[in-house]
């Protein structure tokens, strides 16, 4: 079952002014339920514009979007419904925190959905648990927390709405390696536990290779590739041409192969690389 589908989706910024810019150009895409999709692309390739459409923040200049089979802009008054169905975590989401306590801030979304106190309480605690926030944090002011903690609060604020689709726009930008791994691991756990669809915008090919099931490559306002991780990262040359890269380890293997080593094609995590290399070395000693 496809959860997100677009038909000839286009979006133009500042139409009819000298600043006019096509950000999304005639895009057809369908994303299956339960996928963990990594979105990569150059700065300005239309990633952020695209994901804002899925959350009904931008209205397509032309074309249609279907969420769970429903035409998003068919009934404008119902548009908030889609915002609860598709949760969007922006870049640097910690700048949107505003409440007196972490608890209240996470509760903002569920409250807007019109839930009762009990339900809200359950959702807040669940979401805080998913991002690894402790009980003692909940009563603190969000402005007292560290950068990484603030970000986790902001992500919890979206998770608390329990959306069917979770979209994260570079959730790890500006974090240290520990904070980065922690957030991504928690998102991955959430994906496995909840069987929700997740879209992750990232510039780190390593993270994409490690966590995602599919990759969407955007280039010049269009979908360049949309396929499984192996198939996308097999296009080493094409990706390089549009200014992107494959994971470093894939690059190493690509170059090794070019030098005449017999190696497997689809290596994109260090784990698998280790396995491959050991096999190669054993093979050589055997011979």
């Amino acid at each position, binding site marked *: 079952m496809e959860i997100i589908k677009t038909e000839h989706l286009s979006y133009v910024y500042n139409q009819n002014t000298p600043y006019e810019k096509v950000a999304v150009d005639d895009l057809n895409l369908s994303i299956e339920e339960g996928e963990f999709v990594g979105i990569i692309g150059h700065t300005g390739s239309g990633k952020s514009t695209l994901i804002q459409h899925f959350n009904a923040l931008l209205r397509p200049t032309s074309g249609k979007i279907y969420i769970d089979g429903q035409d998003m802009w068919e009934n404008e008054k119902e548009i908030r419904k889609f*915002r609860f169905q598709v949760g969007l975590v922006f870049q640097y989401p910690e*700048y949107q925190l505003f409440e007196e306590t972490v608890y209240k801030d996470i509760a903002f979304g569920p409250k807007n959905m019109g839930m009762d106190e009990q339900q809200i309480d359950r959702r807040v605690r669940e979401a805080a648990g998913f991002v690894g926030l402790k009980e003692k944090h909940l009563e603190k002011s969000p402005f007292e927390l560290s950068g990484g903690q603030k970000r986790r609060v902001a992500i919890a604020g979206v998770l608390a709405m329990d959306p069917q689709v979770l979209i994260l726009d570079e959730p790890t930008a500006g974090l240290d390696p520990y904070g980065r791994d922690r957030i991504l691991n928690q998102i991955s756990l959430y994906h496995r536990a909840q069987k929700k669809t997740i879209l992750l915008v990232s510039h780190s090919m390593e993270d994409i290779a490690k966590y995602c099931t599919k990759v969407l490559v955007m280039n010049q306002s269009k979908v360049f590739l949309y396929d499984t991780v192996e198939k996308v990262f097999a296009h080493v040359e094409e990706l390089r041409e549009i200014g992107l890269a494959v994971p470093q380890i894939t690059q190493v293997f690509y170059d090794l192969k070019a030098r005449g080593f017999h190696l497997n094609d689809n290596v994109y995590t260090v784990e698998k690389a280790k396995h491959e290399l050991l096999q190669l070395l054993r093979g050589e000693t055997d011979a």
Partner: protein
Amino acid sequence: MLKDITIGQYFPGNSLIHRMDPRMKIVLTFAYIIMLFVANSMFGLLVGILFLIVTYGISKVPPRMILKSMKPIVPIILFTAILNMFFVSGTPIVEFWIFKITREGISLAIFMLVRIVCLIAGTSLMTYTTSPIALTDGIERLLGPLKKIRFPVHELAMMMTIALRFIPTLIEETDKIMNAQKARGADLETGSLIQRAKALIPILIPLFVSAFRRADELALAMECRCYKGGEGRTRMKILHMGLPDLFAALFMTICFAGVIVLNILL
């Protein structure tokens, strides 16, 4: 979208008017405003309209931009026109109940309407063809003599530059925060006045927090580069008056003279 607001926004181009010295543009804009108020007949205003046609023609700013700048003040224009129409005494044309519309009222209403439209279009032309930075630069130089009486001209200009510089940033920031809160289901469009005012809290608090953070960072960055105010500061781009400025001044003088002559003749 918030980004679509124009308050005489800069319209990039490379026309003669774009290249004019901002000081001359500011002075001439003031002269133009004074001219509009000196003119006491429709014919005088026609000179003002002629001036606009010529300058907008040279600037290559599309005429629909004039309409755009006019939009926010439509209520004021209508209000002035209607007041004039009903409250000026003279020969009545139409009369009903306690209202009467006089011939003088109508002509004065049209006169006022044209004057306001010219005023807005004229001042907008300056802001359309001058980037905000060039504008403050021009203001700083024009106010230069006030330094003698210890008026902090440079500091004032720097404050204006920074304020202008941060308007787009803050608008973008507001947009972002609004989107982020909307994504969490914040309802900004419907509800009673009090509800809507309350709905602004989740936007204003993060906005203030980030504005203060930015101000702090900027102050630090300026200090790191040894900024210490206007004393002894030189500039990279020195303003020059050129031939276009001379012609513009000449044209303005001719128009102004024309208006005065028309005033005396009629």
